[in-house]
């Protein structure tokens, strides 16, 4: 088992040969700060995956407890031309994670999108509100138990299920 910035480093194989770290939730900010101090100056992307109905082996390294949600942050070092992905497990019972806003202000919109689509709250985020869906929307569309929905069809025989 290898480590980097105090977090478990992932196996290359399921990640298509790309560098991946698996910090725990309590390590999230510290690992991010260590990576930033080490030259990863830009937060390129932040997103999440809902693993509720995932059928295959997730390929997590030993010591990482799988949870329903996973938040993924992609970092970029311009100086070394290097990329690093941080994957953190977030349980459905307490879907929250500290914000990365204080390290990279550019995380603001990305974290709002993850909150909107998955219902994962980012603690201390300056403006945790919906970004793509209307403000009064209920539910989080990219969760796997959220139906893709249908458009009611205006035919007599159709049983307008929604």
């Amino acid at each position: 088992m290898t480590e980097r910035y105090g977090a478990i480093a992932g196996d290359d194989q399921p990640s298509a040969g790309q560098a991946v770290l698996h910090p725990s939730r309590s390590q999230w900010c510290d690992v991010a700060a260590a990576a930033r101090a080490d030259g990863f100056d830009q937060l390129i992307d932040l997103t999440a995956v809902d693993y509720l109905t995932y059928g295959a082996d997730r390929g997590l390294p030993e010591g990482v407890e799988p949870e329903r949600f996973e938040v993924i942050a992609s970092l970029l070092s311009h100086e070394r031309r290097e990329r690093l992905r941080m994957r953190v497990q977030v349980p459905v019972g307490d879907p929250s994670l500290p914000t990365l806003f204080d390290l990279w202000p550019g995380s603001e919109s990305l974290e709002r999108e993850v909150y909107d689509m998955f219902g994962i709250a980012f603690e201390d985020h300056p403006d945790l509100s919906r970004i793509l869906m209307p403000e009064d929307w209920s539910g989080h569309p990219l969760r796997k138990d959220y139906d893709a929905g249908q458009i009611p069809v205006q035919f007599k025989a159709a049983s307008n299920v929604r």
Partner: protein
Amino acid sequence: MSITDTAPSDSADAGAGAASTGGDRASERVRRREPSAVLRMSEAEAAAIGGDPDDPTDDELVLLNMGPSHPSTHGVLRLMLELSGETVLRSKPVIGYLHTGMEKTGEQLTYLQGGTNVTRMDYASPLFNELAFCLATERLLGIDVPERATWIRMLMCELNRVSSHLLFMATNGMDLGAVSMMIYGWREREEVLRFFEKVTGLRMNHNYIRPGGVAADLPADWRTDVTGLIELIEPRLDEYDTLLTGQPIWRERLQGVGVINAAEAIALGATGPILRGAGMAWDLRRDEPYLFYDQVDFDVIVGTHGDCYDRYAIRLNEIRESLRIAAQIIEAMPAGDYRVQDKKVTPPPRSRIDASMEALIHHFKIFTEGFKVPPGEAYASVESPRGELGVYLVSDGTSVPYRVHVRAPSFVNLQTLPHLMQGGLIADGVAIISSVDPIMGEVDR
């Protein structure tokens, strides 16, 4: 005053701030957050205030909505502006008007159908969406694409960069009152789209780049067409220079407007012409070469002031560089397959379907059930005309992706808007929105 207070200026400071004790961390947080250019106000709050914030020290303070339908917002971008007279204090881009759940839709389409979905995100440069999606899929599949297919992808993407930047030239001119530029930009862009139609069958939303290669080979006389395009557009770019670049009114409108420096752009996640305009030479084509960009000769165009003028000049000159690359591709294009000959991924040729039952079954299986992709996750990114366009794919071993996430450059770049606009006039705001060049289709997805 605008962003230097919200963006970390040096990494050592931020690293220490977040890793040290609670007290330091809290004060650090206050320092970064308080004087912000972003108007963090919900619609309900804004409605309650009703456009007229009660501030005894400034009786010219107004809340104003610009958009969602405003000619300069390029689609349906709405800006909530806090104004003092005509000066913009804080602002907030309100998005989501084009949100149709394309990432959710992507979870129900096979890898072969996925291209039709992602190509509609950034509709001004559809081929880049397809390319990033295919590169991520191919990374999971572990297949190599034939050389000719890779060169075709490069040719089509560079021409798409030309058409996308020409669209920017047109709309940027229109936004600033140079209406003749709008006509010229659309005119030249149409010539590029005509070539796309000849190759892919469609002017936009091509679904041309597919996992394993491209959908069809180039037409027999493509060299004549591309040479014709280069010969047509290059002198027109010099005409644009005459019309706009040196023109005093144009310079007055753009120089020193919407300034951002490299540290601010990096902190806010900005990529593409915004980052390069601020003096940071970063282009994925050169710095993380994909396709065969390491085999062609081109320059990364970099600005110095980080203002609207630099972003305009960068895009204009990137058209020249793209044409330069296209000219090299004409020379370099090898003969060979335009898609991988892997029976698991590629449907059989049309002529085989009439002759062979197995080929017919195979064709049917690939287009209905799709091909299976090994479980895993992968991220692939390309340099789109707007910045880094990335696709994050998670596969569970079936023929449908488990998760499709698109890192849309416009979505992230839009965060720079409040910082670019703070302290400027509303009229400059129009120039700034235009220079960020957001495509709302990929912002909202």
